[in-house]
């Protein structure tokens, strides 16, 4: 981290939204895969015919995309002097 002028830097990979997106980005495909290839009839019967893994996996992937976009469009600036100025959240 280079210090020049006011001591601020982007949260980058430490941005919580990126962390959430990363986690859901791993969970989503696993659940999708289990939903597509690993679902037995007994599993389907448990949940009354709904493929829960498939739908949740797709949902998680969608959420991951939203978080990445959000973090990318509105980055968090970590202000090390705790002077927030006109920063938004």
């Amino acid at each position, binding site marked *: 981290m280079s210090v020049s002028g006011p001591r601020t830097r982007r949260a980058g990979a430490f941005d919580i939204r990126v962390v959430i997106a990363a*986690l859901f980005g791993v969970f989503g495909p696993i659940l999708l895969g289990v939903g597509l290839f690993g679902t037995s009839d007994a599993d*389907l019967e*448990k*949940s009354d015919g709904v493929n*829960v*893994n498939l739908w949740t996996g797709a949902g998680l992937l969608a*959420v991951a995309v939203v978080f990445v976009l959000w973090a990318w469009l509105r980055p968090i600036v970590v202000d090390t002097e705790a002077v927030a100025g006109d920063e*938004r959240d």
Partner: protein
Amino acid sequence: MTLLADASLRLDAGFWDYTLIAVYFVFVLGIGLMARYAVSDSLDFFLSGRSLPAWVTGLAFISANLGAIEIVGMSANGAQYGMPTMHYFWIGAVPAMLFLGVVMMPFYYGSKVRSVPEFMLRRFGPTAHLVNAISFALAQVLIAGVNLFLLATLVDALLGWPRPVAIVAAAVIVLSYITLGGLSAAIYNEVLQFFVIVAALFPLTLVALNRVGGWDGLTDGIRDATGSTEQLSAWPGNELAGFDSSILSVIGIVFGLGFVLSFGYWTTNFVEVQRAMASKSMSAARRTPIIGAFPKMFIPFIVVIPGMIAAVIVPELAQYKQDPSTGEGVDYNDAILLLMRDLLPNGMLGLAIAGLLASFMAGMAANISSFNTVFSYDIWQRYVVKDREDGYYLRVGRTITVVATGAAIGTAFIAAGYSNLMDYLQQLFSFFNAPLFATFILGMFWKRMTAAAGWTGLVAGTLSAVTVFVLSETGVIDLPGQGSAFLAAGAAFVVDIAVSVVVSLRTAPKPAAQLTGLVYGLTPKEDLQDPRDRNEAWYQRPGLMAGIALVLIIVLNIVFF
């Protein structure tokens, strides 16, 4: 719950379930490790600087509480009492969170106190401070025991280990989690955990609703099982409050549960308040609980409703509800786990287990961490070993973490004795939070209140709550449900206020100059504002957002009347 007879509650987790759990823990521990390098001095360790945006601290705020209390306690309560459980959210938590953001947060943030005892010290002096620090520390260890017990239940359901072994194993898990990072990691993990839990419980609720035959299927099922429609409407909640009279029941819920217990819990519980202290400006700190209030008011739909459904469609639990003496080793606390067992396929099961593990773990870690803050700063540094360098107290904090975890193993066995954990938790809150809230609110608004009144009020309030508890345990007062906790809270509040007023009038008040920033009438308006908040948009104004939340809460109460 018996110690060994849980054979019927086994979660059949497979390879992909454990993969999801493992991935989650890699994330959690990874964040902890990264946070470890950011630990610079002790203040950073506990509050991680004041730099987080309000939506992050807002979610962390409710997530710090979305552990034992929400998921297991509220679904147990839903299974046992039905819709009146909604009061914990719509009469209890949400109004209290709004009150915290609008009225109390300016004092906390403005005076930069790190803990409730620190506020007591500055407002009332050392005696009140010490009394409160000890009582607070005790409360944290007892509540940590609840979280630990639940974590152990889950370990037991997964691996089939005997309860005592599971409790110790769970304690080791939590300890390693805590030692890898401070509150900074906790906030990240709590927000992460919030999303994982919603991702698990939301589909679970939908599948459960589908299975029970929709809303109509649920209402029919409960009507058939209980023979009345009482559990289908939130008011008047006689069964929950334990009063036969509907009027007394409403008073008990509004004053006991709503005003004293919930306001006491949310406004004086620094496990949660600390999250708000980590935000970047006064306005962001005030918005923290208010932003948290919005998701909070909808959380009962994914915890209480599944609990209610579990009592209809899970055979063992339905049987237990008919006749508690015949439940095959299950009780209300198991509602959500039983539902997961019956409805979720492998894969989703792993996601749900990861979410629950995380929340119990984080819940306990939060208890231990605030115990740690209070013990090392408010007790050790102030009264035992004074004037040492920061590093020394940080080391004390780390030792205390281990000691507190050990103590929580003991209190976990107390928690194991309750079939509905909410009964136990509300009882604890009536001892610790109700009198504290009375002292706080009087001390904040009445400048005449003296130092002696501060501690005598607290002691008298706690003793009267304990008295009500003993009377109801010995059968002198007969209030089933959670009525005795509501009554104990009410008694603690009233006695605390009465004793404080009487003592204040007979002792000398503190000079007004020492109370600036701590008492409402003596704090200049500009001290309650923050120059960084000048350009806020409408959605960033605490008052307006609180008003919107309040309207929503009233609508929800009417819809589910």
